[in-house]
């Protein structure tokens, strides 16, 4: 929709395409990443009875800016004996993976990169692109810690794709669509219509679905947590064992790319969960714009609710990070293969049966 407007305004599809492609970066990812970096530090600080950064600007609001400036001014160290092409391309690849996911995320009913019919599957597919970058970075660094970290990461991300996908399939069975906009619209604008509460269809099935939806939500939350390498599944970075894991040898902007990708990924998966289970951009209580008859207010409200839901899940990710210890690599696999996947399968079967009934 934005693309159509812009291309007719500029008269050039390519320029319009580039501008539209950049929009999520400048409108969403950068401001969000800056806020998230600050939020992470503040959340951790308050959870640990500290204050956190508070020297740069009011309560440290300029801290991320200072961080970015510091990272940009930092010397870009490339250790000797690294595999240079791979070493340089790895952070880009990681960032591309998480950035591409934003193309299909419906921020509002009108602001979406592309209304892909396969949106749900596209996000999952493209965000595991990250693993190639991590593996490249870890391998090319010529560092044993990086190598171990990268190996762990590859195994982890690939394994946790499965439970994520099984839960997504559960949703697809109920809704019959993988288009995220359609999925959001399906859960109309009241919270009892959210998928976590059984979806909008009335009747006994809705109430029967609720516990299984909650189980599905827990499973997908845990497995996406693992996919974005957050505690308790941050074993690729595991700073107490592997120093910094796959990005041990990176510094300056290349490190910033990994960092940005991590935060972007966090939001991407949170947004996915919000869309799938919590009504996406839909308001939980109906729209003020509808009530007051101001049509242009609705997209803004939608953006607000979407951000609130997405950021809440990001906050929970941070909350978990500052609460939990880290799993061991074999336990990570145990959790995935022995707990999450069986539960997800059983869940899938029961939901399928319920839907058929």
């Amino acid at each position, binding site marked *: 929709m934005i693309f159509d407007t812009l291309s007719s305004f500029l008269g050039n599809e390519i320029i319009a395409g580039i501008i539209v492609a950049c929009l999520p970066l400048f409108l969403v990812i950068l401001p969000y990443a800056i806020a998230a970096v600050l939020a992470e530090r503040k959340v951790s600080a*308050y*959870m*640990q009875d500290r*204050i956190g950064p508070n020297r740069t600007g009011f309560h440290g609001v300029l801290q991320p800016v200072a961080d970015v400036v510091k990272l940009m001014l930092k010397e870009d160290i490339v250790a000797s004996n690294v595999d240079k092409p791979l070493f340089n391309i790895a952070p880009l690849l990681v960032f591309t993976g998480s950035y591409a996911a934003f193309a299909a995320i419906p921020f509002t009913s009108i602001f979406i990169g592309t209304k892909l019919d396969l949106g749900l599957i596209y996000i999952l597919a493209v965000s595991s692109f990250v693993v190639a970058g991590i593996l490249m970075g870890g391998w090319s660094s010529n560092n044993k810690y990086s190598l171990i970290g990268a190996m762990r990461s590859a195994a982890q991300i690939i394994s946790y794709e499965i439970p994520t996908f099984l839960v997504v399939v559960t949703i697809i069975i109920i809704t019959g669509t993988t288009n995220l906009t359609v999925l959001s619209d399906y859960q109309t604008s009241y919270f009892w219509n959210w998928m976590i509460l059984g979806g909008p269809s009335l009747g006994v099935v809705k109430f029967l679905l609720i516990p299984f939806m909650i189980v599905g939500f827990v499973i997908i939350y845990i497995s996406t947590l693992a996919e974005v390498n957050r505690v308790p599944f941050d074993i690729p970075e595991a700073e107490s064992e592997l120093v910094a894991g796959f990005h041990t040898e990176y510094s300056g902007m290349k490190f910033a790319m990994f960092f940005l990708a991590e935060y972007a990924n966090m939001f991407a998966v949170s947004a996915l969960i919000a869309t799938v289970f919590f009504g996406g951009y839909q308001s939980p209580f109906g729209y003020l714009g509808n009530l007051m008859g101001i049509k242009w207010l609705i997209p803004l409200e939608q953006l607000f609710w979407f951000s609130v839901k997405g950021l809440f899940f990001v906050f929970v990710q941070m*909350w978990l990070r500052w*609460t*939990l210890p880290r799993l061991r690599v074999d336990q990570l696999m145990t959790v995935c293969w022995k*707990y999450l996947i069986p539960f997800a399968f059983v869940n899938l079967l029961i939901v399928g049966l319920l839907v058929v009934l």
Partner: protein
Amino acid sequence: MKQYFLDTWSSIWTVLVGMKITFKHLFTPSVTIQYPEVKVELPERARHRLYVNMDDCIGCDQCARACPVSCITIDTVKSVAGEDLGKTSNGKKKVLWVTKFDIDFAKCCCCQLCVFPCPTECIKMTPVYEFSEYERENLIYSFSTLTPAEVAEKKKNFEKAEAEKAAAKAAAAAAPKPAPAAKPAPAVSKPKEENPNT
């Protein structure tokens, strides 16, 4: 099988318990002290930088000997008869010119062992803890109140007195039974505070 579900449940439950604890801490006031603006009030026994009150120091070298890291160096010159060095605050008469009293705070380990043997309680720990420097040499604090010129003068006086004493001794040894009144000391006495520089 039962164990399997128990494990699953206990994992989720203990995670939630932990989350509750950290969530509570989100609202407890922070314990951080904003250092340069806010400073902790140190207790009166706090031991940080040493301070020497040179008016009371008698140059007995006891603190230097007590120091386990040898960070105190003291040089003294004996006063010659007739020089009045004054008294310490607890009434001890001073007999030594303390020409050098250096404490190297780069070495000092703040163990307080030098404070206790001091007979006049002139060396003590103070709660001053901000005295970092860019150069190590600047951490050597010189407490002696005498200027180099004065030190040289005192040394000269002492050597002169020694020489005269030795001469008198030699004279006494040479003369079989000399009169004991041949003390030359009063001859060198002169106004002490007459410093040409000031």
